[in-house]
């Protein structure tokens, strides 16, 4: 698919609105290749911004995180970014703000906390709660 879908009329679309994940046929197992090395098609949801569905956003506290990967495992939108078994941040283009990552985070206090979408990261980190049960 060399032509952009935005330049296509009805006659040029893939029938049935079937959406191919990659530009070409692949001869590798995608689960063995990092996303940044996959040749995604233009119509792949990777390029579809849906971050504006979110009301609350997750904020990550790097000082507290133990890189247990629970959040990565449980996120229903694969929006926890992780490399070499270390959490590196969120994919805010696709995160829906469901709060599951906060819920499953085992540290005390939590290493992920949900804040309203407009809260600045620094402001959020300044408001981080104390360890429960301390003092």
């Amino acid at each position, binding site marked *: 698919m060399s032509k952009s879908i935005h330049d296509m009329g009805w006659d040029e679309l893939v029938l*049935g*609105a079937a959406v191919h994940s990659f530009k070409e046929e692949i001869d590798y197992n995608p689960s063995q290749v990092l996303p940044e090395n996959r040749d995604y098609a233009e119509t792949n949801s990777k390029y579809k911004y849906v971050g504006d569905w979110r009301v609350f956003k997750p904020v990550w506290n790097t000082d507290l995180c133990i890189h247990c990967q629970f959040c990565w495992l449980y996120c229903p939108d694969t929006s926890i970014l992780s490399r070499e078994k270390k959490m590196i941040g969120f994919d805010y283009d696709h995160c829906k703000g469901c709060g599951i990552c906060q819920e499953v985070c085992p540290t005390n206090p939590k290493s992920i906390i949900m804040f309203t979408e407009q809260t600045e990261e620094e402001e959020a980190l300044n408001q981080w709660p104390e360890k429960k049960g301390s003092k």
Partner: protein
Amino acid sequence: MNSKIMELNKVEVWDGNMAATQAMRQADIDVVAAYPITPSTPVVENYATFHANGYIDGEFVMVESEHAAMSGCVGAAAAGGRVATATSSQGLALMVEVLYQASGMRLPMVLNIVNRALASPLNVNGDHSDLYLTRDSGWISLCTFSPQEVYDMNLCAFKIGEHMDVRLPVIVNQDGFLSSHTAQNIYPLQDKEACDFVGEYKPLNAMLDFSRPVTHGVQTEEDWHFEHKAKQHDALMNSTKVIAEVFAEFEKLSGRKYNFVESYKMEDAEIAIVVLGTTYESAQLAVDKMREEGIKAGVVAIRVFRPFPLKEVSDMLQNVKAVACMDRSAPGGSVGALYNEISGALFNSPARPLLSNIIYGLGGRDMTIGVLCDIYRDLDAEAKAGKLNGSIQRFVGVRGPELKYYKV
């Protein structure tokens, strides 16, 4: 082809349900997901029996509802398999949501609808209310008038829907009980002949093709929905070419000729009725009786209900003086569907026959040759008078005071 072959006699005695199942068996289907409902139950039962006895290599999936049956079919078709099922009436009503998915996702499959009235009141007998429920669903819709035709159209249906220029699901309609439970002589093809005719299934954008991962059933809003529906309609409209080719190929193989619009004694007819389903066969006998009385009657039946053969049906009615469009479905506050289609077909043509709408046979109420003769006599009187007898629409065969609507 299935590994176990069934030797068939030159002539078999099958009812419409068995005719459908035998064609399905021969078509070497990968997945049948089905839920039984009267009067199409035997299609599913027969298929399960063939499967249990080793005559079917594909999968037979028993599901918990018709919605699940059609969903299973959609999944299996998207995965890249040949798929079919059967249903009737309320079962079809439950399937409707998924019918639109199947056609919109451009997944070829065959659905046998054994036509039955829609409740309420609950009724298991034949009328065309379920057929009409599928009108705008984007499926190709073929009509049959006898068990032989059920068999023939099933084989054609796979070949039409799966053609690379079509890729659409196909419905094969037959009248509940009048066709589905009426055993008649059938001239089947042998397994190999039938299987070769239907041909090897060619998957397209199959989910099981791991070299080309694909998502089916996506969301498109105002940005792309219109284009996809346009493309779908275009495929449905242009499927006429493939339908004609498949009918021609089938004729070569079987000697049986099918047309988009079937007709009897229309060459010199002065009055005509337009029907669907088994009424076509009864009407032919009524036409012969009328001809003995000196009335030049004819009958027209729609074979390919979708895509609608607007031009063909209009051409056929150019020389008649009066036409009754016979709808076997409660019209729900308007003229019947056939009346709408036929008047639409004629409006841009020179012909201006008197056009009336008869509602008949609801819930399996018999349409006899005698009543058909009465309808022809009334049409003849209208043609001679040069005007309709008081109204466009009337109910025929209902007890109680006369029911007429849209006075003229």
